[in-house]
């Protein structure tokens, strides 16, 4: 029962922070989907539900936080590269500030 609660909570936290994590990873580099997922796994140890990555990137694009472009490959199967937009960079700054404040507040009580 408690385990269940913790698992559900963990999954909510992950879901709620995934966009924030992805935006951070895209801060210094542009990546295509599979690479973005591997980077996330490598840098954060977080295993994302891979199928949901693309709908989420789609949403971030609709919100004008990232832009994307298809790049043709020799294999004939193009890659779609994502990068932060100007709006994405400034939004991420605000998110990082909020995250730090949140971290401080939580640190005080745990």
């Amino acid at each position, binding site marked *: 029962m408690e385990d269940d609660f913790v698992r559900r909570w963990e999954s909510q936290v992950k879901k709620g922070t995934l966009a924030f994590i992805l935006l951070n990873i895209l801060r210094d580099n542009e990546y*295509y*989907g*599979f*690479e973005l997922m*591997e980077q996330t796994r490598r840098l954060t140890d977080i295993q994302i*539900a*891979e*199928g*949901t990555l*693309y*709908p989420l990137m*789609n*949403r971030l694009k609709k919100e004008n936080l990232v832009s994307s472009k*298809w790049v043709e490959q020799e*294999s*004939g*199967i*193009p*890659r*779609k590269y994502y990068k932060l937009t100007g709006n994405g960079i400034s939004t991420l700054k605000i998110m990082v500030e909020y995250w730090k404040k949140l971290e401080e507040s939580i640190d005080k009580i745990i």
Partner: protein
Amino acid sequence: MKKINFQDKSAEKIYHSYIRRIDRTLSVLPKSDKIDLLMEYNSHIYEGLQSYGHKSEVERLLQITQNLGDPEVFLKPLVAERKLIQATKTFNPKHIFQAIFLNIGNGFVYSLFALLYLCLFSFLFLIITKILYGTQVGLYINDGKFVALGILDVGPGDIEVLGSWFIPVLLISMVLLYLLITFLLKAMKRK
């Protein structure tokens, strides 16, 4: 979209069946959006096959599709949301109908929409029955109280009040109901 080539026939089958599942789930989206997402999952599968190089094609493919999950599950929120945006932009009844039913799981309010939509169709049904059966269809009151809107086996004291206005009144109600649903959907989307 360029399909991935496989040497192994089973791997090829698994691949085509998985792509078909994505394609089917995305069928309600506009064509360009659908192709874009399909290409992205196709690219994901291709890159995955390259990166898990040391296993057999089937093993690699199964690992990739397993990590991705069921398309019907991971695509549902996107499809539901997109349909909603499309529905409120176009006023097209087909899109509105799909949007409502895809979003029913997203809260009570969409069940209410479904009910309103059902009302809309019942009005249409009543107009058709009025044309076919005339006298037994109408808005009936008895002694100042509402009795029925619809088909009635008329009893003593029941009076039909709309008469030849029945069809125009229902048509106007349908238009109003339709506008109400569409504007409520728009308001929901803005939330």
